[in-house]
């Protein structure tokens, strides 16, 4: 195996809470557009588009698909819990996770979404405000079809305005 891409600084960062964001209140329009995109070209289910139909379900209101992202375009507040912030211009930089931590990245060229593990709690619905917290998960690496692959993880925890767990997600990023 080639030299490791996991530095001592990267190992030391595991467990660090990096950011906390608060969403804008989720709107019915946000939910409707998301559902239309993920069901396109078919019509999205009424529970995501029709408040009257949604009111007759166990949810009692328009709810969002579990995979809905209330932070996609903007957040009401973004609190960086570290000194170093990742410049928006480098948001998609493969070194982004480490730059946000104020440490050097592995300097790899490409990145891929390696996988998601998710535990769900209560549903998100119109009017909800979601508070999301990100922390640094484990690193490891192995040889893959595109050479030596670095696997890094981010733990994302979302709660709603009543402090109820919405979901806890582990995202794996593959870099090479």
């Amino acid at each position, binding site marked *: 195996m080639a030299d490791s891409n996991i530095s001592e600084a990267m190992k030391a960062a595991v467990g660090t809470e990096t950011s906390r964001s608060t969403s804008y209140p989720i709107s019915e329009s946000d939910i409707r557009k998301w559902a239309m995109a993920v069901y396109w070209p078919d019509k999205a*289910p009424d529970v995501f588009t029709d408040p009257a139909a949604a009111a007759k379900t166990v949810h009692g209101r328009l709810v969002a698909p579990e995979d809905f992202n209330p932070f996609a375009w903007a957040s009401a507040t973004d609190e960086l819990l570290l000194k170093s912030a990742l410049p928006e211009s480098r948001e998609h930089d493969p070194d982004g996770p480490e730059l946000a931590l104020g440490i050097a990245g592995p300097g790899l060229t490409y990145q*891929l979404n390696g*996988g998601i593990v998710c535990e769900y709690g209560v549903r998100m619905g119109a009017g909800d405000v979601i508070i999301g917290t990100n922390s640094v998960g484990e690193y490891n690496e192995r040889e893959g079809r595109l050479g030596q692959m670095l696997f890094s993880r981010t733990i994302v925890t979302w709660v709603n305005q009543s402090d109820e767990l919405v979901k806890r997600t582990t995202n794996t990023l593959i870099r090479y």
Partner: protein
Amino acid sequence: MTVKVGDELPTFTRETGFANWNRYAAVNDEFVPIHMDDAAGEAAGNGGAFGMGNLQWAYLHNMLRSWIGENGEILTIEVQFRSPNVKGQTVTAKGVVTAVDGDVISLDVWTEQQEGTKLAPGSAKVKMGK
């Protein structure tokens, strides 16, 4: 409905390409060159632009929701993104019951392309709606 090990879920299928990916990018602000530009996707070793893993994730949720009903619950789900969803593929989300423990149903879930190659295999636990 009585659920038993080996039951196959109704599938969720989409023809995939920029028409799907651009719509998803628009709601998730996911305008990443590898998903928008063939040259960027090719440079990344995938022969051209390829779809978002998050959209495969969404298709798996769509399949599960359709089966469990509006009052059902997805408790957990995990997938690995093993192979890229390239333009022109027909992607199908599938699932099969692997265990039933009270009202908790365990499943193997995955997306596959038209030749049966799995793109995003994983597992899930759900409760059926009442």
